[in-house]
């Protein structure tokens, strides 16, 4: 039940998936909102602080997900061959995109040599300035990547809904609860 099977995902993958989804949407909304805050807004200082802190937690979570992914079997793909190929491509792009998002975010705030405070628990150290105008360039990339990822996530979610309502297969169900052999499968 904890681990993935040939037919479906185990609880570990399911929990990590939805936790990621929650944090990704939360971080996107927080990011959009915080850059528009005016100087005298009470959240002007705290919103970026939480955005960075949660971002680092999310990065660790994605690291664990990737580890969990390589350490256990993945359920076999559903749908037509091109659908399976596309799904795989989208999944890998999401992982690569998220990782690039973490790196670009890290490079914005550490360009001055200061580390990033994680909820005042600990500091992730800076690795210094890697290139000129790092905070501007990394900032542009971070913003662009965030929009692209949300677009890709929409494709990912729409595809799941299409599988559920049109193809009537277990694509969506198996990421909501573990499937037991020859049960629950419609």
């Amino acid at each position, binding site marked *: 039940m904890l681990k993935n099977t040939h037919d479906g995902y185990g609880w570990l993958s399911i929990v990590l998936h939805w936790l990621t989804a929650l944090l990704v949407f939360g971080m996107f909304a927080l990011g959009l909102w915080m850059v528009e805050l*005016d100087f*005298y807004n009470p959240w002007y200082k705290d919103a970026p602080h939480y955005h960075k802190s949660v971002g680092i937690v999310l990065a660790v979570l994605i690291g664990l997900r990737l580890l969990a992914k390589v350490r256990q079997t993945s359920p076999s793909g559903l749908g037509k061959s091109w659908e399976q190929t596309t799904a795989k491509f989208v999944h890998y792009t999401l992982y690569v995109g998220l990782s690039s998002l973490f790196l670009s975010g890290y490079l*914005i*705030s*550490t*360009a*001055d040599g*200061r580390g990033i405070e994680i909820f005042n628990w600990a500091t992730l150290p800076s690795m210094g300035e890697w290139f000129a*105008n790092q905070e*501007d360039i990394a900032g542009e990339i971070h913003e662009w990547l965030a929009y692209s990822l949300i677009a890709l996530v929409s494709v990912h979610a729409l595809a799941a809904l299409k599988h559920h309502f049109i193809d009537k297969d277990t694509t969506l169900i198996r990421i909501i609860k573990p499937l037991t052999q020859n049960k629950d499968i419609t």
Partner: protein
Amino acid sequence: MKKTLLAAGLLSLLSFSSLAADYVIDTQGAHASINFKIKHLGYSWLTGGFNQFDGKFSYDAAKPEASSVAVTIKTESFDSNHADRDKHIKSDDFLNVSKFPEAKFVSTKVENLGDGNLKIMGDFTLHGVTNSIVIETQKVGEGKDPWGGYRAGFEGTTRIALADYGITYDLGPASTYVELMLNVEGIKQ
């Protein structure tokens, strides 16, 4: 014919030497800096500067009012020693450096106040807006350097209101203006 040319050449050389000497601002050796300070909430001064700029001036101690100066600043070199703040200041909320990559000052008139004190009037362009400003300037010193050159240096201050340059982001009532502190050393050409 040759003699006339030679005489004309000598004459022009002579007349040039009687004019103010031209100096290139020593940004190469970083013996010049463009610094600013602005109040943070009205409780303290926040300082920073522009790291990349170049310029030249002409100056003659015997005739200071004939001096002139021109400086071009790369706005993306804004640095207040804090990456997140620098990113914000360089964004379109403030300097909008991608749209306005350069700021510049070109003197229009110099007034000699005596004792090495000068009033430099000129056009300052920032954020795409040009206003005339006055830089209160004092000569720090001039003379030979140990490596065969000749240098002259000045310090100057001026104060600009952000709104005059179309920068209207609200930083509070104490932070509507910026003090500029300029240190310039030129190498005689």
